[in-house]
């Protein structure tokens, strides 16, 4: 019965999101430019045109022949429980959006290998299932970026190249087989001081440009405990989502990371508990509820 109640709540949240997005899409639908007409990245300030979302909200069907990493279950195993959990996270995030506001979320964690990049990629795919949203997944971990590997995209050109002027944003934004999902990889990890690079005004301008061109931006960041990049990147985003790997990351480390983010006055939206172990009893109850 509890699962039925959860499903009803999710359906209600979906309806609320659709209602909010209907206003957003109505605004963006007036623009004749779609994602195909992305403006080129220029350092001079210019007026940002917001691409209108499509008039009709419906999920897209991702192509089956996109070869990505098996951990991207929202693409490889769409019917799985985990994929559904990512969709639920998507719903939660969309329900917190202010109608008409474009979102840029930083995904971070306390320590490396907690599942930031996998969460970012899966959330991006789940977001892109909402067909009218232009979604961008950008890898800001300039040291050990792994988003490109997950999507099996070439690392260069990436964010490092864009920020160092070796490539334009258009060159760095990779279109994916999912039409409304774009990916920017980290690029070559050859810069001596990535934190300085991310703290530059170019980065700020780049994020302004990105926010102008995409409805929803998911930023994959380094771990909080490792470098201070999160504080810089988080300030450019509308919110921060903390990924915590269950049964592995120590609680005091997570709390310390959280205090670090809060000391930077970042808007911490919430946390995602990753790598939860399936509870047998829970599934048994679920099966029982379904039979009823």
């Amino acid at each position, binding site marked *: 019965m509890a699962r039925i109640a959860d499903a009803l709540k999710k359906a209600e949240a979906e309806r609320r999101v659709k209602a909010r997005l209907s206003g957003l899409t109505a605004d963006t639908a007036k623009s004749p430019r779609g994602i195909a007409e992305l403006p080129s990245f220029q350092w001079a300030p210019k007026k940002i045109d917001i691409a209108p979302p499509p008039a009709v909200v419906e999920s897209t069907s991702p192509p089956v022949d996109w070869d990505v990493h*098996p*951990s991207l*279950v929202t693409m490889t195993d769409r019917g799985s*429980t*985990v994929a559904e*959990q*990512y969709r*639920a*996270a998507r719903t*939660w*995030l969309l329900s917190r959006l202010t109608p008409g506001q474009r979102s840029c979320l930083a995904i971070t964690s306390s320590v490396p290998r907690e*599942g930031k990049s*996998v*969460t970012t990629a899966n959330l991006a795919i789940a977001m892109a299932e909402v067909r009218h949203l232009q979604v961008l997944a950008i890898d800001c971990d300039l040291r050990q970026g792994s988003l490109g590997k997950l999507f099996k995209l070439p690392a260069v050109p990436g964010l490092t190249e864009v920020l160092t002027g070796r490539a334009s944003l258009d060159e760095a934004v990779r279109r994916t087989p999912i039409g409304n999902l774009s990916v920017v990889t980290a690029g070559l990890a050859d810069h001596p001081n990535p934190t300085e690079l991310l703290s530059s005004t170019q980065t700020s301008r780049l994020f302004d440009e990105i926010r102008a061109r995409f409805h929803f931006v998911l930023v994959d960041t380094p771990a909080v405990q490792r470098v201070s990049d999160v504080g810089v990147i988080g300030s450019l985003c509308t919110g921060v*989502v*903390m990924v*915590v*790997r*269950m*049964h*592995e*990351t*120590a*609680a*005091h480390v*997570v*709390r310390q990371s*959280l205090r670090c983010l809060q000391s930077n006055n970042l808007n*911490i*939206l*919430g*946390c*995602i*508990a*990753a*790598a*939860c*172990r*399936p509870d047998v009893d829970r599934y048994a109850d679920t099966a029982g509820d379904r039979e009823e």
Partner: protein
Amino acid sequence: MQQPHHIDDFSVSDLRHTLGEAFRVVCDRRWRFILPFLGVSTLALIASLWLPRQWSVSTIIRREHDPMLASMVGKTWTEPYADIRTRMASELSDMETIQTILRGMKLPEHGEYYSDGQLSPASATAESAMAAEVAAGLVIKNVETSATRDVVSIRLTMGDSAHVADILRAIRDNYISRAQRRTTEILRGAETFLQGETTRCRGEAGSLQKQLFELEATYPGINPDAVDPTQAAETSLVVEGVQLARKLDEVRDDLARLDSGNEQAIVASDVAAVASGAARPNPRYTSLMQDIEKIQRDIIEGRTMKMMTEQHPTIQRLVASLEAKQSELDRTPATEAEAAGLQLTPTERLTSRKAELLASRASLEKKIAANREERGRIEQSRTGMLQARDSYLKIKAKLARANEELAGWEQNMGPLKHVLTLEDSNRGIHFATVRDVESVVRPASPDGRVVIGLCFAIGAAVGVVVVLVTELLDRSFRTAQGLSSSLGIPLIESIDEILTAAAIRKRLIRRVVILPVTAAVLTLTTFAAGAMAYLSLQQPADYETVKHSPHLIFSALWNS
């Protein structure tokens, strides 16, 4: 309708939660328990092979209370058994004795001896240590105790399995030998004592007997239990006195008739008597001859058959009677004619007759006086005898006691000599081995089952500790609710672990192959270590065999 909560619901719920958490911990951390459990158990079992073993042997001896000593008079002879019983433990555990025994057995092995046979200081120290170990490992226990015998169990526990049986055997034999020697010494002392007492009693009895003889010689008839010889002598003297008095009266009558002129009548009677039988023998003469012969036979018989001395009253009385008869015979005529005096003239006959009567009267008066004197002497002797009878009776009682005591000592001497003969021929009955020392098969301690159980318990404890430490050190978040409440930020979603094909394969390999194989290898190792530990503790002989031929471990276990 919602049921109101009962207080028990919460406790049941808490219990279920606690049990569920425990079950979850057990399931989640099972390998963290199994692997340390098997590993540590194996190490503990291997380490148990080096545990010092204690080997134990025992023997049972029966200790008899010597019946001879038990029945002997005097406290001195009843105490040795109790003394032997009391001193047994101290004598068995005596360090000097044990050291002597060990030295006799050339133990400890590889001891260094100087040319004069003395042990080097290091070897002497080792010997002392071994003796102390033996003394500490000796346990003496009474299996059966009674007034007449004890059944005693002697147990020796020590670390030297090769010599423990020999050492116990030597200690037992040494003790029995010493105890028997001591018993023999006691018996020798008893024999000396008995001999001294016998000699003393015999001497005392002889002295008393001599005093009795002297009193009996001095005072005939002093013994009230024997016939009084003076009584018969006095009686015969009284009778003789009466007869003599009657004869004296007759003689006096005859003299009176002679003096009064009745001579014609006396002569006429004599003539008539001659006419009646002139040639016939005198009857008096014949009677005296017969009496003399009889008295002579009695005297000979008394001297020879009855061993009477000349001083014996009977002999003296017979001699006196013989003399009297002989004197009368000399005066008595052999024929009646001679007795009648017919050959003389009447005047001569009267004169002769008067002279005879006068002589007879004098003789009779003399005899009567002697008779009275003898009777007075007997009376005087009886008065002295009665005065000495009390001392005689006292001496006789002393003699009886001395003889009784002598008989008691002599009664003990016979069995004592018999026991000593048995002891001298090494056939004493004071000690007997009921159960001999058996060869040791397995160590007495530590107990194999206890050691193996302890090893597994240590392994299990380490496994539990590992699980608990892991659980305590695991500060990660367990539940999404805990995460949210702990951090104070909203929980967006809890995402299950993503299991890719590679991850599943890796996990399968880990769970199905690596961990089970490791557990199987560890289990086999634990089994082998446990089997070796068991065999080393329960079947040391099989353990030595398996050490050189490991493939025989199953048959050894099966046989054990």
